[in-house]
């Protein structure tokens, strides 16, 4: 966990890609879950933030 947080603070690609991937996966789950309409409503913004973040952080150093 500390390694992950250090990676985020030092703008390392691995940690930020992991965070972006979690956001994308969370957004997709929110989009398709059958339980709460509110989650569905905010799913797109979560996926969009994750996807844009993924594109940006893939240019960070390893």
């Amino acid at each position, binding site marked *: 966990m500390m390694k992950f947080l250090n990676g985020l603070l030092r703008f390392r690609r691995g940690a930020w890609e992991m965070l*972006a*991937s979690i956001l994308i996966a969370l957004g997709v789950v929110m*989009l398709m879950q059958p339980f709460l309409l509110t989650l569905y*409503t905010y799913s*797109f913004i979560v*996926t969009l933030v994750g996807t844009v973040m993924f594109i940006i952080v893939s240019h960070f150093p390893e």
Partner: protein
Amino acid sequence: MSFSPIDRAAAKTPNGVARRIRGLSDRTIAWIFVAPTIFLLLAVNIFPLIWTIRLSFTNFRVNRPNNDVEWVGLQNYQRILTDPDIWQTMQATAHFLIWTIILQVLIGFTLAFLINKKFKGNDMWTTIIVFPMMLSPAVVGNFWTFLYQPQIGLFNYVVAFFTGVDPASFSMIGDVNLAPWAIIIADTWMWTPFVMLICLAGLRSIPDSIYEAAECDRASKWRQFWTITIPMALPFLMLAILFRGIENFKMFDLVVQLTGGGPGNTTTLTSIDLKREAFEKWRTGYSSAYAVILFVTVFGLASIYVKALNKVKER
């Protein structure tokens, strides 16, 4: 002295042009060769994408081109993301996507594993198994519509044979609980061979020497399967999941032919709903926003998936 076609072409090039070409740097020549492809890519892929994003913020209707186009901001997105019917469509798509991938990967890998064994008639069985994939989705849709007929359909009689229920007592296409499974079965029947072929390529790429070494170390067949076969075929399996995942997210023709999205909205997948919004209700701006949402979802998923695939390949 013989001249090659290149020499002949060079000889025919006018002096002025030849001098100009000789003066170009390698980088410029590379750009000249790449430029047509980049131009095509921009014209066919990037421009429509940007245009769709722009339209998604308007109330444009393509069947009323003379009407004023108003900028509505995020209103289209807001309406889509608060609509319970579209939410229902997303769930139907998720159900279809998850189950088709699970079934196709399990059956496809098992078939590939069996076909990979050397036995008599191996090639003939491969051809027979691959046959459904060669058919048009419209044909498969029609074909399964007949198979699912409660009165004359073979499917109902097979189920009746194994379970003892009356074949006319249930309708795969007409029942709200069975219709989602009807499209899953038809898609699995059609596309499992594709997964099988990719898995077969993966299995055939594993050198025999690895298994021979494992035999020397007295590794059991079960152990060989989990420590050699699965890890080495995993990139191929992941590739198959990626292809099928993206394809099934866009699934349209087979389902339209089979159920038309019914009964009710139970088999209305996002692509069918999108087509109705865009080309039946002619709400172009609204459907553009819908398309952008689907695009971002597939793009995001594909990005993390490709990253995972590269990690598996690096191992």
